[in-house]
């Protein structure tokens, strides 16, 4: 109930009486994704691959506060519908605020922005339900008519709504409560008038959740452990939280279809290094989506 009231409050703030000249916008994407390690498993036996249908929508308005400063407020919705591991299927509802400052006149003037986002995720497996928050500071510049660069610093956090009874006395069951500091940079290049290529690298330092069959090493290095039946119950698997430094490499191609739409192909490689005997966790994610922006 509290969540619903919170979202309604945000909605009232966003869509209540607005200045007549607010710049209303709507963005949506729909696509498919394949992840070769949705469980973020360590051992080959525990690594589970799955495909999903994905959709996102956001709507809101942008208000130019001054000559170079603008505020964007948006409501967000997204869903990821997994084909096999349906416990991961979830719907997210949230809101984002972004304050953007441009330093000068023209398309190649540098800009900086700060944004905050909160989204509640409702999973088929209820213990994964929770709020995802992030706060981001980013900056960018168009280097030429074809090249753009940007960088960001982001803090992300996930807080589950409810916790299981601890399965191991003395160890928290908040296995899905994770946080991380992210430092990233990306570059994009217009290959043709309609085709953009982008590449990015993000370094994340924080905690991650993994699902594996439990063993002594996992339990030794985990700060939280909870039962997780999403990937099966025989053997019984557990979700556990560990500290990790993650390298995230991303590549994307985007082809515009007219003024408002684009088709996007993206690849992301993540490598989480625990710095302990547990070793490294990695995943490959490929997605294809159609996006619309108005």
């Amino acid at each position, binding site marked *: 109930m509290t969540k619903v009231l919170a979202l309604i409050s945000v909605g009232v703030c966003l869509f209540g009486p607005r200045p007549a000249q607010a710049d209303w916008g709507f963005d949506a994407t729909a696509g498919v994704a394949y992840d070769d390690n949705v469980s973020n498993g360590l051992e080959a036996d525990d690594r589970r691959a799955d495909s999903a249908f994905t959709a996102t929508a956001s709507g809101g308005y942008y208000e130019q506060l001054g000559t170079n400063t603008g505020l964007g407020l948006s409501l967000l919705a997204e869903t990821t519908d997994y084909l096999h591991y349906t416990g991961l299927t979830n719907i997210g509802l949230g809101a984002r605020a972004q304050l953007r400052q441009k330093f000068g006149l023209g398309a190649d003037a540098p800009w900086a922005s700060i944004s905050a986002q909160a989204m509640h995720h409702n999973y088929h497996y209820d213990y994964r339900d929770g709020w995802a928050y992030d706060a981001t500071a980013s900056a960018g510049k168009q280097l030429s008519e074809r090249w753009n660069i940007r960088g960001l610093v982001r803090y992300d956090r996930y807080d589950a709504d409810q916790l299981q009874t601890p399965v191991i006395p003395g160890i928290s069951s908040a296995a899905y409560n994770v946080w991380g500091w992210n430092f990233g940079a990306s570059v994009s290049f217009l290959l043709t008038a309609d085709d953009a290529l982008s590449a990015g690298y993000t370094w994340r330092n924080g905690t991650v959740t993994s699902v594996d069959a439990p063993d002594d090493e996992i339990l030794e290095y985990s700060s939280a452990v909870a039962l997780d039946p999403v990937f099966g119950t025989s053997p019984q698997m557990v979700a556990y939280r560990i500290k990790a430094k993650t390298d995230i490499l991303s590549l994307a191609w*985007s082809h515009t279809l007219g003024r408002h739409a684009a088709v996007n192909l993206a690849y992301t490689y993540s490598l989480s290094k625990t710095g302990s005997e547990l070793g490294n966790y990695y995943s490959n994610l490929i997605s294809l989506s159609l*996006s619309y922006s108005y």
Partner: protein
Amino acid sequence: MMKRFGILLAVQACLAVQAPAYAAQLHALVLGQDGKPLPNTVVVVMPEDGQLPAAKRTVEIVDQIDKEFVPYVKPVRAGSYVQFPNKDNIRHHVYSFSPPKKFELPLYSGTPSQPVLFDKPGIVKLGCNIHDWMLGYVYVTETPYFGKTGADGRVDLDQLPPGRYAARVWHPLMDGSETATIKHIDLVDATGSSVEWKLKLKTEFRPRRTPLPGEAGYR
């Protein structure tokens, strides 16, 4: 007899003040290198004797509609004013860094109270500081004899005094100089002359209107 003679003289006098008795026409066709018609190309003809009629102060219009400049290319004669009405229900911030006319119309809605004077020939590239993908051009020419091709790549210039002209074309994406397109044409009668250009074009790289995956865009 004297009365008829008087009428003839009067008719002759009328014809004399309307000289020239006919106006020449130029039928221009502009194609891309692929042979397809090329719209938004400015066709300019300059009398080689340098005789130009005095400029009239006119007010031309470049709208902003659906976060785009309309028209994309606007040819005007030097000395013209251009008004930039904002037909969107949001504010725009129009500017140009181009040497023939540097100006800025900070955040506004509706129609600015003062139009902008374009008094130097040249190409003025327009932008909007909020919507970076918005791009438009005002082509300022010293001659009153100009036009812009339509979707069929054609434009007809009429009411041209007979004489020898240097005709040239300009397109925002043309690969090469405008001077290289000059063709010398004799316009001697009202039947008109036809002239054709084939232009090699460059790719236009605009900031994207649709955000890249994972980016929120300007809002």
